[in-house]
């Protein structure tokens, strides 16, 4: 281990520890804020884990998030908490496999379309089930989980997700993703199962997102399909990951933190015009920073030093 990487690891651990001790010296409001922020950090990082290297834009974030939350609400009284989380992850995995197997062999746009309507489909199915089979819409969650507990779980999940994302970058899977990004024909002729790699990554990403929903569920005590399948969640995740930059480990995190604070402030001050402002910000981001702030910062930085960075999508020499 070089001195520099040792330093980064140490820094990561110190920051993590400082964040973990936060509930002991900060008030209830800060913890609530941090739950939301950490949740979005995980969502954006998990989203970028799949969508960054494959360029498949997933609009299904809230479908998995909602599946997680709803599974917890259904099972919270029948199973121990750990098993409830496990069950939620499993349901998310199964849905991800079905969606992935159906669409990931095809061109990316089919996946986008499928994921676009997935949240609405799951919401309507859950609503139909609750109204027709159980006869109630909406459920109470009584779990002995404090908001500090939720925060710690999310923090652990965030650390695990970042670690996982980092590990992929140095694994064979990471190499496979780079090769697929460069040239799918070469990839398959080298023995890479392209659809398999995409499916694996999509499933991991979906399971993490499902867990975020599951862990956050006890916060609400009462949930309804329209609450947990709110498309704004998918939208925010997407903006945050794109603003930070999906090609870099820290990109989604750096996008999530400022945007989360901005959106909190906006929704508190402009509750009615919130979606409009959100949409306009997003359009602006796509126009101004197509590769995210980190890439833009690197470009400006290298320009200042007179170094040219080759564009990522330049292709081969011929």
């Amino acid at each position, binding site marked *: 281990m070089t001195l520099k990487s040792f330093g980064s690891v140490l820094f990561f651990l110190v920051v993590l520890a400082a964040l973990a001790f936060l509930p002991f010296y900060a008030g209830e409001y800060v913890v609530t804020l941090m739950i939301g922020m950490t949740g979005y950090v995980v969502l954006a990082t998990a989203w970028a884990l799949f969508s960054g290297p494959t*360029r498949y*834009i997933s*609009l299904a974030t809230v479908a998995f998030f909602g599946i997680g939350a709803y599974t917890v609400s259904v099972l919270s009284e029948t199973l121990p908490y750990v098993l409830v989380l496990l069950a939620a992850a499993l349901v998310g995995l199964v849905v991800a496999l079905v969606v992935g197997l*159906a*669409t990931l062999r*095809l061109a*990316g*746009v*089919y996946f*986008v*379309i*499928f994921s*676009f*309507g997935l949240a*609405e*489909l799951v919401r*309507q*199915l859950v*609503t*139909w089930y609750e*109204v*027709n089979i159980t006869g109630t819409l909406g459920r109470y969650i009584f779990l002995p989980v404090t908001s500090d507990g939720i925060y710690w779980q999310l923090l652990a999940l965030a650390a695990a997700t970042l670690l996982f994302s980092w590990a992929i970058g140095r694994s064979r899977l990471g190499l496979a993703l780079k090769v697929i990004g460069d040239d799918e024909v070469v990839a398959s002729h080298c023995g890479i199962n392209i659809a398999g790699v995409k499916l694996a990554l999509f499933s991991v990403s979906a399971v993490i997102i499902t867990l975020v929903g599951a862990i956050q569920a006890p916060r609400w005590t009462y949930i309804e399909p329209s609450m947990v399948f709110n*498309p*704004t969640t998918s*939208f925010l995740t*997407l903006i945050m990951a*794109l603003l930070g930059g999906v090609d870099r480990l820290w990109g989604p995190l750096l996008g999530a933190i400022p945007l989360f604070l901005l959106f909190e402030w906006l929704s508190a001050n402009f509750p*009615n*015009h*919130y*979606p*409009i*402002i*959100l*949409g*306009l*910000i*997003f*359009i602006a981001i*796509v*126009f101004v920073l*197509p590769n995210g702030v980190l890439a833009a910062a690197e470009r400006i930085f290298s320009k200042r030093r007179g170094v040219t960075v080759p564009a990522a*999508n330049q292709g081969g020499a011929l």
Partner: protein
Amino acid sequence: MLTTTIISGLVLGGTYALIAMGLTLQYGIARIMNLSYGEMIIAAAFLAYVLFGQWGVNPVLGLLVAVPLGFAFGYLVYGLMLRPLVARAASRESLEIDSILVTFGLLFVIQGAMLVAFGSNYTSYNYLNVGIDVFGAVIAANRLVALGLAVVAGGALYLLFTYTLWGTALRAVAVSPRSAPLVGIDVNRAARFAFAIGCGLAAAGGVVISTYQTFTATAGVVFTMKALVVVIMGGVGNILGALSAGLILGLVETFVATYLDPGLTLAATYLIFLAVLLWRPAGLFGRSSR
């Protein structure tokens, strides 16, 4: 019962075909995957609602206002928002990604504006809500008008595309955007028109829908989704395909709603979509070109 279901299915299918034609033009010719398409439909539905409620303007006349407005809106959106993306796109894939993202943002802008103006309640109005006897089944007159409008608009578009030079030029762009300029077709202009016509059709669809369905400011996603499924079933850029696939989807949904449960129509749509993806991803009527 069966006749009623079939006719209701055809009405719904005609509407789907109409809106899917607009989307297939936008995606097939302008190469824009427009995720805010459903919001444009709902906006037109609200326009018809206001025209009818405030000024008593008959929805059929309302079309004469809504369609040109939709066209103008599409023309502007393409010129201001999408043209710069087309110009900077390095490949078809990167344009696809950019257009998906930007129109996803636009979806929230339009939806937000409608929420501010109309709230999130279910909206509807009473227009020609009288029963008419058709082959022994009683059908509301507004549904028959809706079917008629869909057939007229769809038919006119089909004729326009098949028999005019201008329509042929647009189809040429759909088939081969790279060689179209070689025979003197202005691809940029064609794309802009196709996108604008698509928005015009969305507006027409919205007005038609408002005559016989309740709608909310947040219902756009479902319409986009259904239009997309129809486009894929019919084959991207294929107008006749969109027409047939729209009718099929409308019939299936109505049957599911009548004989199973109205809460399962979207599930039925998804099931069809899944079957098409697994069985014929190039569309029911398209030849696979990959």
